[in-house]
């Protein structure tokens, strides 16, 4: 009997699969709210003042950061899942995983700092 080992043991599969779906639900709700509030209510113009006014609310900022975290996870994990199908060697997989994680951290830092820094009108020079 041919004994080829097809296994590549990784028990993360289930966790990532579940988180991908949980994050999807969160994003779905936040995104719809985001669209309604930004794009469909009002005249469609987005200005500095409008945004910073909203960012005065810590509650709003929290949702923005939550959105950023879930969207980054969902998107980058999505890329990971797609590439897992096509890239089978260990080395390129590790490389890609590192790139995705670094990219995620950078974007997380950039996004969070925007929200936090732009959220305080006092910091903005008149």
């Amino acid at each position, binding site marked *: 009997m*041919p004994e080829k080992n*097809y*296994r*590549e*043991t990784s*028990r993360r*599969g*289930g*966790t990532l699969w579940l988180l991908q779906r949980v994050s999807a639900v969160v994003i779905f709700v936040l995104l719809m709210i985001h669209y309604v509030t930004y794009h469909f209510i009002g005249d469609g113009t987005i200005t500095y003042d409008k945004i910073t006014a909203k960012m005065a609310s810590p509650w709003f900022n929290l949702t923005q950061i939550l959105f950023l975290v879930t969207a980054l996870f969902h998107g980058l994990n999505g890329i990971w899942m797609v590439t897992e199908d*096509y890239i089978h060697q260990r080395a390129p997989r590790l490389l890609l995983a590192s790139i995705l994680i670094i990219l995620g951290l950078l974007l997380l830092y950039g996004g969070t700092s925007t929200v936090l820094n732009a959220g305080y009108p006092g910091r903005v020079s008149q």
Partner: protein
Amino acid sequence: MKESIIVKILRYQPEKDQKPHWQTYRLDVPADSTILDILNEIHWNHDGTLAYRRSCRSAICGSCAMKVNGQNVLACETPMHKFRGNRLKIEPLPGFPIIKDLVVDMDGFFDKLQRVKPYMVVDKPIPDKEFLQSPEEFSRIRESAYCILCGACTSSCPSLWANENYLGPAALLKAYRFIFDSRDDGTDERLDIINDRNGLWRCHTIFNCMEACPKHIDITGCISRLKNRVVDNSL
């Protein structure tokens, strides 16, 4: 009543061909012919070098799965009139290596099946008579027991095309058949085997397998239940 048809077949004769090529046959066949009838007609009366597998011709043995006009079917149960225009394009199952013409190498397919411990494991004492199982418990595994191992599903799966080590829908369905059997005691081990990068998590609910399945088994549904079972177990 006969009809004229044009049949293109992907030929590969290992002793002379570098790679597969198309060969066209024009012939007259009865209007109610199946794909297998047409192959037989070619093989018996026109070109004996054509190779394909067939046996029961009643859709139960699973020998004659092949790709016809862009989808995997069993040649024996598929009438040519399923496809319009009397033009047929017949290829071996995609994703599997070709041995000759329409005959593919199924060793990997059966090998993967064996990975999921495709047999009932019993730890409890064997009774004098049968193990009791309610009709409801039976109905949970009934559909999965219809699988004829023709390979049409696994061969149709884009995840398999991308990754030849993917267990594939047929092997996962076989795992389901035992994991959801009330008599079986090997569930945890089997769940552990399929909870793998090349196992459950390569299924992206694409549904090609269900389109291809000649027994119309809810394969994707079964795999989804397996995913939930694995996740439930680890939570």
